[in-house]
């Protein structure tokens, strides 16, 4: 077996295992974020708040935590390891904004930080808002 064949073989067998591992890692890490947020949520419920307010507090706390962890540089390691488990929850949104802010700070407050803040989060806002708009229009036309 020459080197090329060997590489082909490795390519054939290794990714599927990695994919399974990645998927499990994403499940567990996403689940842990869900678990942590439930704990925060329940604590706020104990303070006589309704579920909407508690949810808002939970989201703000998660955003603050991921923003701080991004600043420290700890979050990049987590993203590398757990990928979608961190990116899909709201933590990913906050992470993308904070990291864009920090990375572009050196180019100045306006041309660097300000104009690049939504570099990654912008697409989420754009496509979320636009698809919501289109769907509302469809709903209104067909259901009145």
């Amino acid at each position, binding site marked *: 077996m020459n080197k090329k064949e060997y590489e082909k073989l490795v390519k054939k067998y290794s990714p599927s295992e990695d994919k399974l591992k990645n998927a499990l890692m994403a499940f567990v890490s996403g689940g842990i974020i869900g678990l942590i947020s439930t704990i925060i949520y329940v604590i706020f419920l104990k303070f006589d708040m309704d579920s909407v307010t508690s949810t808002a507090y939970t989201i703000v706390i998660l955003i603050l935590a991921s923003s701080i962890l991004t600043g420290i540089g700890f979050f990049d390691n987590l993203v590398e390891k757990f990928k979608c488990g961190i990116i899909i929850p709201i933590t990913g949104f906050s992470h993308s904004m904070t990291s864009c802010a920090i990375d572009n700070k050196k180019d100045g407050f306006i041309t660097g930080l300000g104009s690049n803040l939504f570099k990654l989060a912008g697409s989420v806002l754009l496509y979320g808002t636009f698809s*919501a708009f289109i769907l509302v229009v469809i709903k209104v036309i067909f259901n009145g």
Partner: protein
Amino acid sequence: MIYINAFILVGLISMIGQIILDNSKLTPGHITSMFVSIGALLSFLGLYDKLIEFSKIGSSIPITSFGNLLYKAALEGYYSKGIIGIFSNMLTTTSAGISASIIFAFIISMFFNSKD
């Protein structure tokens, strides 16, 4: 029980994202944008309420809840204020997440510098 449900729901949505990421050429940016739109679509089809029923807090943590909230807020705006309500109500319920992200991103970036 609500702990387990939240774990399962957030975990599953993250896992679906990871599987798509691994089996396609899409970047995480594509995945998150796609998931927001999917959230709005599920809300439109009335399916997102099933997720909320399964886990109230778990359903509001993944980025899909953004789409759900945008759609619901805009629709509610239409019913209460007419066409202008779609525009003026669209971002109301997601405001906490967006403003917190902006404010904290700015404050945190004052204290830390990028490593490279």
